[in-house]
């Protein structure tokens, strides 16, 4: 399906609701529709074409265009382009019809836009608060431009979150906000009958950091990569690359080929250690600590390798707009190769051992089922979707860095369960070894030193870009609307956990309590990625430090 087909289809079906379209950069189609027609347009895209919903972005454009805007982002994976539905909302009483009834996956996006920008979505099936804290005052919208990033509104405890009522005869088993196997704060409220989970309610967004707001209001283009890297501790480089690609796209900056390869190597090293980490954590969740210890032992040389290449184990700080900061010297390549091949050997041994492990399979098989249709409905990504036999991988579908030049397979499984996700991850790691080796080959041929294109002039305002980068957990989508002052007007991060997390209730319902942690674990949730929004007072420097006495007093209480 070409962009032209889409346009004609939309024009024909939507009719007068269709306003116009542009193609800002080659892989994008930008369609503006009237608010009344948005449900129809989304229905056509979602049901009649191969489009996959990505995310909805709200944007406060009252300064520029006297409007609030809502963008519904779609991707055509096999045709390698993005489609954006641009809907205008009134600047005074912003209101856009909800598309959640058409695409379940839009649930969170719309609630988030409502919370942060105050755009209402009439017809939303679950209009509870999503992002804002429990005591955040009503009608204070932190992502609007007039809201200063360091403002701290007073507490309004009456806004407390309303959970669902217990279904009769069920007990609440609270998994969270602080729960041992979830490394971050998240709250799954399980309604349990015996051991069976009858229903589940979710409350998240406990750890808001206001990263997007900072990106919009205080940081500059070349500072944001370092901030983006800190969205997530594990797939930081992905966010980093994603943002850099975004700006490079928008400003049409050509990145040196060597930098592309270096980025590819780092991305794949990150995938390797992330999957190793995940396997360990998954083992730990089901009480198999040996897996944790052993995979993390295997992971360690990779971490050292990363430190050797970039200067840090994690949060490499490698990327700048236009290229990378450090080169991989040719002398280092053999060492990388040995480390990688050692790890590959051990990884094959792990695969060999794990694949027939009955007890492990008993815990992982037929648990947390999410099939193809469910994935499409919730717009699930990454190993979750690939385990449901959906062939999607941003590396193939929207090639970036050097992925157009390396060969690899997209691993899929058709078991729809946690075991499938495990297998996909393990096999994917093997593909990553291949990619690293190919990239190293290419690196040996390219001249050393040519790793960055300096930005000579300002990034022009009003440019639009979408970038999709395949993180270990799935596809990471960044959206950018450039602005003046050397910073974006709107920078939206949709990490892979964001669409995957809302699928948990579907996966968990009817399973046993014991399965819940591993099901949640199976999407490799990254709550910090998801909860990048919200404002905290980062700039006051007023950090409270607990002395040892104070700490022991707290802990002994």
């Amino acid at each position, binding site marked *: 399906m070409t962009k032209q087909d889409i346009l004609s289809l939309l024009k024909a079906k939507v009719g007068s609701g269709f306003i116009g379209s542009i193609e800002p950069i080659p892989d994008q189609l930008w369609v503006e529709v009237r608010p009344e027609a948005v449900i129809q347009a989304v229905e056509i895209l979602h049901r009649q074409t191969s489009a996959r919903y990505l995310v909805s972005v709200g944007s406060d454009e009252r300064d520029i265009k006297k409007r609030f805007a809502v963008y519904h982002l779609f991707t055509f994976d096999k045709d390698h382009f993005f489609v954006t539905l641009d809907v205008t909302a009134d600047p005074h009483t912003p209101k856009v019809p909800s598309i959640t009834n058409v695409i379940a996956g839009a649930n969170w996006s719309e609630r988030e836009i409502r919370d942060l920008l105050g755009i209402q979505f009439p017809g939303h099936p679950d209009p509870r608060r999503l992002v804002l804290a429990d005591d955040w005052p009503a009608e204070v919208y932190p992502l609007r431009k007039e809201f200063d990033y360091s403002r701290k509104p007073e507490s309004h405890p009456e806004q407390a979150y309303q959970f669902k009522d217990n279904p009769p005869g069920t007990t609440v088993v609270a998994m969270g906000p602080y729960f041992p196997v979830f490394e971050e704060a998240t709250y799954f409220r399980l309604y349990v009958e015996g051991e069976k989970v009858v229903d589940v309610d979710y409350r998240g967004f406990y750890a808001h950091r206001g990263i997007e707001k900072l990106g919009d209001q205080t940081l500059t283009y070349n500072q*944001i990569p*370092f901030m983006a890297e800190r969205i997530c501790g594990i797939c930081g480089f992905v966010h980093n690359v994603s943002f850099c690609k975004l700006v490079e796209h928008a400003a049409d900056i050509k990145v040196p080929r060597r930098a592309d390869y270096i980025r590819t190597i780092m991305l794949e090293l990150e995938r390797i250690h992330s999957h190793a980490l995940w396997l360990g954590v998954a083992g730990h969740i089901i009480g198999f600590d040996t897996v944790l210890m052993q995979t993390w032992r295997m992971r360690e040389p990779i971490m050292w390798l990363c430190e050797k290449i970039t200067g840090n184990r994690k949060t490499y700080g490698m990327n700048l707009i236009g290229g990378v900061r450090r080169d991989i010297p040719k002398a280092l390549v053999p060492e990388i190769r040995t480390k990688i091949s050692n790890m590959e050997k051990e990884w094959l041994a792990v695969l060999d*051992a794990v694949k027939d492990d009955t007890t492990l399979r008993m815990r992982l098989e037929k648990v947390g089922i999410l099939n193809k249709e469910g994935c499409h409905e919730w717009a699930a990504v990454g190993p979750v979707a690939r385990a449901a036999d959906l062939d999607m991988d941003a590396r193939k579908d929207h090639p970036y860095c050097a992925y157009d030049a390396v060969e690899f397979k997209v691993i899929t499984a058709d078991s729809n369960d946690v075991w499938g996700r495990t297998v996909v991850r393990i096999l994917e790691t093997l593909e990553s070894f291949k990619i690293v080796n190919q990239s190293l080959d290419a690196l040996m041929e390219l001249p050393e030193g040519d790793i960055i294109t300096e930005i000579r002039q300002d990034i022009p305002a009003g440019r639009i870009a979408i970038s999709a980068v395949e993180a270990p957990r799935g596809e990471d989508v960044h959206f950018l609307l450039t602005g003046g002052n050397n910073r974006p007007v709107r920078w939206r991060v949709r990490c892979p956990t964001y669409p995957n997390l809302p699928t948990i209730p579907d996966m968990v319902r009817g399973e046993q309590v014991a399965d819940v942690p591993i099901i949640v674990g199976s999407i490799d949730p990254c709550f910090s990625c998801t909860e990048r929004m919200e404002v905290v007072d980062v700039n006051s420097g007023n*950090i409270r*430090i607990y002395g040892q006495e104070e700490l022991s007093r707290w802990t002994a209480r």
Partner: protein
Amino acid sequence: MIISKLKEALICFKNLRVTFPYPLKRNFEALPVEGFRGKLTIDVNKCIGCAGCANVCPSRLIVVTDRQAVRKLDFYLERCTYCGRCADVCPEKAITMTQEFETATNDVHNDMHISAEVYMGTCQRCGRCFETQTIIDRMMTVGFRN
């Protein structure tokens, strides 16, 4: 099943132990590699007070205050992300990233705080500091640096 368990056991036993009783005994192979970005230091003698570092720092931890002819650079390192951008952009290479990584402390405010004072010329009109013009001037003011 038994076979796969044995394989797992084999993976486990092959490596015996790899951990160290860390603070008591150090693994000397596992010290930071060359190029590691640890806690930063500033060589006050090289610093020309251009404040480029403060400009690029993503976490805004470098606070520049001017008091007449003295420019004070405060590095509140408890917020440092070890990106090393300051060291990159420093024209005089006054900032370097050391290999020091054991920075846990009970007194973050004092232990993770570097303060550098640079004597600079003062603009008579706006009262702000600026770098003294010539190398001679810099040599003359060396005594004021601490």
